[in-house]
């Protein structure tokens, strides 16, 4: 346990393939995916929309169980959702009829005693929502709602937290703030993090490694380690350099003619 000890594999994905049946035809969403995530590691998965990165996350979450190849969590094939894998979606997906406290306590099972438990209080505090326990989702800003969603995903103390473009719908300033919060939460909880994003800056800022995916069919193009100490300076030379390197992975062909056009 812990990031200091031996680094066991939390997630092991080998030769993963996922087909969708669309109008009598088959569309391959993911092909030949190989990825091993160590316990306590922070992995960013980046790709353009439609590259299958969310599908990959949904397979890890156990929401898509019809896949070929191996997807193992803690040495066992993933056949469905599990409380040891928390999920934060792009939309906060809070239940509009529950207060922040009740939403956070949702995963502990219903009942009053649960929603006043230590874990609920602690995680509301962790995401900085103390004082808003009685608020309903419609009274929260987008950033606050996403904080509550993170607390809800953490309340069962999952070993892995899966984040599916969690800040995609937030404004740029809130987004940066939330990225820093997530790092703090990661350190506090010691959970393995898998973040899916289309934001290069976000991927580099957060990840120990950045997994670059390409589209149709979705494959892993490259995995880039980010050996920068935290807190990372988005303006530093190394950071910018990495960002450009990843940028080039996506736009290598288009870059030159564009430069000449100017």
């Amino acid at each position, binding site marked *: 346990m812990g990031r200091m000890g031996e680094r066991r594999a939390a997630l092991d994905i080998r030769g993963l393939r996922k087909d969708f049946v669309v109008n009598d035809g088959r569309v391959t969403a993911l092909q030949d995916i190989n990825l091993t995530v160590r316990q306590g590691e922070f992995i960013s998965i980046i790709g353009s929309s439609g590259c299958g990165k969310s599908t990959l996350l949904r397979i890890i*979450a*156990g*929401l898509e169980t019809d896949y070929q190849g191996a997807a193992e969590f803690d040495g066992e094939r993933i056949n*469905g*959702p*599990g*409380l040891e894998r*928390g*999920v934060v*979606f792009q*939309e906060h*997906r809070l*239940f*509009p*009829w529950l*207060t922040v406290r009740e939403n956070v306590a*949702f*995963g502990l099972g*219903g009942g009053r005693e649960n929603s006043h438990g230590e874990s609920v209080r602690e995680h509301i505090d962790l995401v900085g929502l103390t004082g808003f326990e009685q608020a*309903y989702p*419609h*009274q929260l800003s987008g950033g606050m709602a996403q904080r509550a969603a993170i607390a809800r995903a953490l309340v*069962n103390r999952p070993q892995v937290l899966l984040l599916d473009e969690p800040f995609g719908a937030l404004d740029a300033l809130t987004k940066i703030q939330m990225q820093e919060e997530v790092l703090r939460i990661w350190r506090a909880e010691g959970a393995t993090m898998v973040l899916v994003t289309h934001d290069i800056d976000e991927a580099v800022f957060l990840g120990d490694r950045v997994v670059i995916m390409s589209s149709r069919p979705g494959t892993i193009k490259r995995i880039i380690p980010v050996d920068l100490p935290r807190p990372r300076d988005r303006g530093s030379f190394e950071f910018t350099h990495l960002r450009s390197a990843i940028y080039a992975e996506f736009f290598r062909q288009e870059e030159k003619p564009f430069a000449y056009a100017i």
Partner: protein
Amino acid sequence: MSDGQETSQQTVVALDALKEHYRLPSLTFSVPRQIQGVVLPAVIVAVWEALAHAGVLPANWLPAPSVVAITLLELLRGGELLSHIGVTVARVGSGFMIGALAATLLGGVTGSSPLVRRVLDPTLQALRSIPSMAWVPLFLLWLGIHESSKITLIAVGVFFPVYLNLLSGILTVDRKLLEVGQVFRLDKVEQVRRVILPAALPSYLVGLRSGLGLGWMFVVAAEIMGASRGLGFLMIDGQMTGRASVIIASIVLFALFGKLTDLVLERVGRGLLGQRGVEF
């Protein structure tokens, strides 16, 4: 929406300022916003009253509002009115209870089991296309002219909107919320209790409200067709004895009680849904 309100408020403020500046004489009557909706009916009643007194309207066909009011008071003093109201309210109440209960049970079952839905729903949809009044002769034949046939008719009227709204509420529950339930490994029963039912509640309440409205419609039909008590009977009585004021008084009472009971449901709905920030 609030943006629009703000803009219009700002516009109003700006116009007021302009008016102040140019000292324009105010040409608009200042009626408080809350009672603006009352102005038109009040004017209609006043004009109606004036025309009746001027002899333009035939008194036996369209008596003056004041005459209707006096008729209401007389009926009330005679003591029979309260019993008519009581009988009608009891019919609507029990028909509503029975219809809503059956609709809730059936809607719940068809909503939660695709198999039951495929078996049951087509039949219910087919029954729905029968004009409800077409049941009347059959109910009279089966149940006689007494309370049970009337209450059954009302229950049938209440049933369909409640059933349809509950079912559609259940079937249109946001898949994304269901997924959250899945992520937390809720079993089927828990998923229904903790996600599907609360999510379907707004639609269900809409169904109850329109069901209640239909209940009031059907009680009139049932009572007109054969009753010895109730507000519908009072209308028929007024027609038989040529007293238009009694008919109009009954209409007013139907409107009043229909609105009152709807208001109760609206309040209940607001209490249940207010926390979600949705209008009801």
